[in-house]
């Protein structure tokens, strides 16, 4: 860790306790960060599949997913590019509900989330269970905007937001961890903002 930077005061003397280290409050902004062109996906053609190390590989279409118990997240989100956004409100279904139907086997320890665009991101299974991860289609009471992953994205708000795959269409349970898109490009396999796990090796 380097010492102080000459002449740098920083803007905030009162640090908001909701901000993980190195993050700033984006206020009402919600920056868009996507490495691929935004796809156009209609709800009629969207589905979510849970497969891999499960006893019952299962696919839900739009209506079937909406028939599952509704679940909401109200709280903060944190992007690795250093913005955080407080007090968001998303709604959809808990990943627990999907896993309850698909029944992970004893060998399942990791998850690969895949988007319609081919984007992938890997997560420990423990990070998407226990009421900490959702598949969401609502934001602030309306449809999730397409540039923010609509019609449906993954939401894992306790990890950096690249783990919350936009346009999610598949969750594949794995025995061993494999790097996803950003993880192959130097980003952290877990991505806990409170531990500042931005890059591999953090």
């Amino acid at each position, binding site marked *: 860790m380097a010492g102080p930077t000459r002449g*740098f005061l920083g803007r905030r003397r009162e640090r908001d306790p909701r901000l993980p280290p190195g993050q700033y409050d984006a206020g009402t902004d919600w920056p868009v960060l996507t490495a691929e*062109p935004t796809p156009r996906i209609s709800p009629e053609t969207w589905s979510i599949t849970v497969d891999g190390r499960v006893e019952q590989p299962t696919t839900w279409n739009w209506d079937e997913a909406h028939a599952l118990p509704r679940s909401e997240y109200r709280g903060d989100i944190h992007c690795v590019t250093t913005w955080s956004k407080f007090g968001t409100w998303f709604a959809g279904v808990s990943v627990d509900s999907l896993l309850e139907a698909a029944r992970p086997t004893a060998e399942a320890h990791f998850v690969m989330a895949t988007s319609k665009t081919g984007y992938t991101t890997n997560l420990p299974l423990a990070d998407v269970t226990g009421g900490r991860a959702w598949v969401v289609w609502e934001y602030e009471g309306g449809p999730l905007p397409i540039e923010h992953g609509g019609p449906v994205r993954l939401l894992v708000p306790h990890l950096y937001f690249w783990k919350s795959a936009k346009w999610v269409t598949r969750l594949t349970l794995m025995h061993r961890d494999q790097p996803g898109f950003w993880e192959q490009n130097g980003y952290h396999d877990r991505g806990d903002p409170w531990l500042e796990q931005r*890059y591999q090796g953090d």
Partner: protein
Amino acid sequence: MREVDRPTPRTVQLRLAVPDRVDHLAGQHYVVRLTAEDGYRAQRSYSVASAPGDPLVELLVERLDDGEVSTFLADVVEPGDELEVRGPLGGFFVWEGERPALLVAGGTGVVPFVSMLRTARELGRLELLRLLVSTRTRAELPYVAELEADGAVVLTTREATGIRPAGRLTGPDLVPLWEPGQDVYVCGSDPFAEAASQLLVGLGVPAATIRLERFGPSG
């Protein structure tokens, strides 16, 4: 910090000597991390403008009026200062010097493409790259003379250029530059990257060949 220059009113060009540095690939970025006396830290990512063969690492920073890091870099930093940097980072938005590529930039989104052009020049492979930059005015575009000398198309949205009236990027601006087999790179603000990538997809460019780098109001 070795050299500090202000090529346009809203940008600062920083040239750093980085000890034990690993050569970057064109398109990669560095994180600059600032630490206050009380330990408060702020960090941002900036694309590298220099080629790997340059003995210094060159960053080009746009000064945002409410930018905590960019105002410091633009207003306070002087040659001789020490800055904590981390890099090179990013393995996706890179050009490795071998494949033909179409580069589409909005404003200071041109920075990673400056590195790509300089790398191509070092390799003697400038013919692989086609670059289009959209800027409000020529005076606001850093590197404008260098870019045009390398054949870049500079399109202005707030002033006419030759017979082209002022106006935003359109499909017909892109058509003459696109060739099958190119990788496509788009870099700019959120709205620019979104609009440019949708134009390209609309022209029939396969979405899987398009790589985006967006920067938002992230200070």
